[in-house]
C-alpha cells in the first residue's frame, strides 16, 4: 500500500502544475510551455535557499515570486511583442535553463541533510502519513486560494476573457494585463509544485522539468473528461478534479511499475491505461445510445 501512498503524495506535489495549467489552458486557451522552466525554477530556488540553511517559510514566498515573474515574462512577450504564446513560452523556458543553472551553481543539489517542509511539521510519527497531511493541507490551501480568486470579480473577468476576448475588451477591460497576471498566477503555482517536489524527492535537478508540462496537460484533460461527463459547473469541484487528475496520473504510473512489465514498454502501457480511463465515459455513452 505504501507504493500507492507515495504515488498519491507525488500526485499532490504535482497538483500545483495541474492547477497552473488549468488556468493557462482552460481559462486562457494558452498551452503554456513556460511550465517546464518555472517548475525547475521553483526547484532550483528551493534547493539553493534550503542548502543555504534558510527556513521553509522564507523559501516559499521567494519561489512564488520567482515563478510568478517567469509567467509575467511570458505574458509580456506574448501580449506586448505580439509573439505567439507557444513561442513566448518556449523562449522563456529555454532562457530559464541557464538561469536555473546559475541559481543552483551546479546541476544537482541533494537536500539530504537540510530541514525540509516535511521535517518542519509533525502531525503524526509515520513519515509518509505526515507528508500526506502536509501536502493535503497545501493542496487544500491552493484550491481555496485559486477558487477564491476565480470566484472574485477579477476572476470572473479572467474567465470571461478566456471565453470571449473581444467582448471583454469591448467592456473596457485591459485584456493584456489580465493575461499577464493570469500567466503569472499559473507559473507561480507551477513553481510551488517544483518547491514541493524538490523536497519530496530530496534533490533539485536541472533536468527535473523536462516534459513536465505533459503531466500538467494530461491531468487537466483527464479532469476535463470527468467535468464534461458529469456536467460539472462548479469551480470548486473542477479544481478538485484537476488535482485528482494529477494524482490519477501518478497512481497509474505506480500501478504500471508494480505489475512488472518490460521496462521498454513502460511509457506505452502508462499511456494505454490513461487512454482507457479517459475513454471510459465515451464507451458507456455509446452503449447507452
Amino acid at each position, binding site marked *: 500500500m505504501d507504493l500507492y501512498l507515495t504515488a498519491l503524495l507525488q500526485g499532490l506535489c504535482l497538483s500545483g502544475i495541474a492547477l497552473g495549467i488549468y488556468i493557462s489552458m482552460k481559462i486562457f486557451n494558452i498551452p503554456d510551455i513556460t511550465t517546464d522552466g518555472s517548475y525547475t525554477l521553483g526547484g532550483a530556488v528551493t534547493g539553493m535557499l534550503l542548502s543555504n540553511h534558510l527556513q521553509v517559510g522564507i523559501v516559499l514566498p521567494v519561489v512564488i515570486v520567482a515563478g510568478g515573474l517567469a509567467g509575467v515574462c511570458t505574458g509580456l512577450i506574448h501580449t506586448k511583442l505580439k509573439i505567439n504564446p507557444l513561442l513566448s513560452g518556449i523562449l522563456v523556458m529555454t532562457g530559464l535553463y541557464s538561469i536555473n543553472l546559475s541559481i543552483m551553481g551546479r546541476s544537482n543539489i541533494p537536500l539530504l*541533510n537540510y530541514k525540509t517542509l516535511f521535517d518542519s511539521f509533525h502531525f503524526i510519527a509515520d513519515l509518509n502519513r505526515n507528508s500526506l497531511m502536509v501536502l493535503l493541507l497545501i493542496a487544500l490551501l491552493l484550491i481555496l486560494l485559486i477558487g477564491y480568486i476565480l470566484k472574485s470579480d477579477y476572476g470572473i473577468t479572467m474567465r470571461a476573457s478566456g471565453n470571449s476576448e473581444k467582448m471583454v475588451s469591448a467592456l473596457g477591460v485591459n485584456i493584456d494585463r489580465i493575461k499577464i497576471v493570469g500567466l503569472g498566477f499559473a507559473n507561480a503555482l507551477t513553481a510551488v509544485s517544483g518547491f514541493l517536489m524538490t523536497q519530496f524527492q530530496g534533490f533539485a*535537478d536541472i533536468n527535473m522539468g523536462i516534459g513536465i508540462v505533459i503531466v500538467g496537460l494530461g491531468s487537466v484533460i483527464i479532469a476535463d473528461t470527468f467535468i464534461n461527463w458529469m456536467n460539472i459547473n462548479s469551480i470548486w469541484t473542477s479544481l478538485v478534479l484537476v488535482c485528482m487528475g494529477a494524482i490519477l496520473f501518478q497512481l497509474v504510473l*505506480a500501478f504500471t511499475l508494480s505489475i512488472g512489465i518490460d521496462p521498454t514498454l513502460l511509457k506505452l502501457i502508462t499511456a494505454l491505461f490513461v487512454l482507457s480511463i479517459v475513454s471510459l465515459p465515451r464507451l458507456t455513452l455509446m452503449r447507452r445510445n
Partner: protein
Amino acid sequence: MIAKYIYPTYLILFLFLIGCKPSDSSIPTIGFVDAFEDATISQAHDGFMDALKSQGFSEEDNTLKVLYRNAQGDIPTLTQIVNYFVSEKVALIGTSTTLSTITAIQRAKNIPIFMMVSPEPVRMDVLDERGKAPENLFGVSESLAYIDTAFALIPEFIKPKGDKIVVGMVYNQSEPQSQDALQRVKALADKLNVVVEAVPINSSADAQLVTQSLLNRGIDVFFANPDNTVFASFETILKNCNQYNVPIFTSEAGLVQRGAVAAFGADIYQWGYQAGEQAAEFLKKGDAAGLTIELVKLRKRVYNPEAAKHYNLNFPESFEMIE
C-alpha cells in the same frame, strides 16, 4: 446518477487489488534501477547480474528475484521506482548512474544501496555534517583520477599541428561530474603542454552543432569525457570527427567499442561486476558489516584496431584490442 461513478470505482479497486499481490519470501528480492536507456550504461546492469550469478544468485536457478525498472529519463518515475522497491521491501537496491543513486539514498533509508557508474559521495554532495556518506550506501564509485590517466594518453600518441596540441571536448552542464572533469582536464592541460577547447552541451540534440563548432576551431584531437550526453550522441560526434580526420580519445572502454581510438579507464561492465560481487557478499552474509564504498579496481588500456589503422596510430602491447 450513481451508475456513472461505478466504473471508475471498479477500475480503481482493480488497480489496487492487482497491486497488492503477495510475494514469495523464501528467495531474496532485489531491485535494480536505471535512470535512462543507454547501450553503454546498460552494461553495468549486465555486469551486476553476471556477478550475482557467478556467486549463485540468479533468476534462472530460482535463487533470486530481480525487479528491474528503468525510469527512461523521467525524474518523477525515478522517484516512484525507488518508492516501489521500498514498498516491496527488497533486500538491496542496485543503482546505476548518479541520479539513480541520489534518488535511492533519499527515499530508501534502511535498504542497502549498491551504486555503480556514480562518482564518490563527496562529488554527489551527499555527505552529512560530519563528512560521512549515508550509512546504507555501498557499491563502487570512481574518483576523478580516471581523467588523469585517460587524458595523459593524448600527448603520447598525437603530434600537434601547431605549437601545442589542441584538444576539443564537450561537457554537460547538467551533470556535476562532467563539470568536475572539465576542471580537472583544464588543470592537467597546463602540465601536459596542451590547449583545451571546451564547449557546453546540454542535450544530445545539440551534438551536431556543438561538434561542428569545435571542429571548425581546428582541434587536433577530441577527448570524449564520458557523460550522459556523450554516451547518447557518440555516433554523431564520431561521424563529424571522422570527416575532419580528428581522432577521439576517451576514458571508457564501451566508447572505444563504438569507434573511439583508445581509452585508459573504467570498463562499465566491470564496474557493474564489482558492485555485483559486493552485493552477492551482502546477500550471503545477510548484513552489511565490513562492506564499504569501493573504488573502481580495474582500469584498462584499450584501443580500437580499425580506428587506430585509420589514423596510423600504433599501440604497444599493454593495450588490449577491442572489436
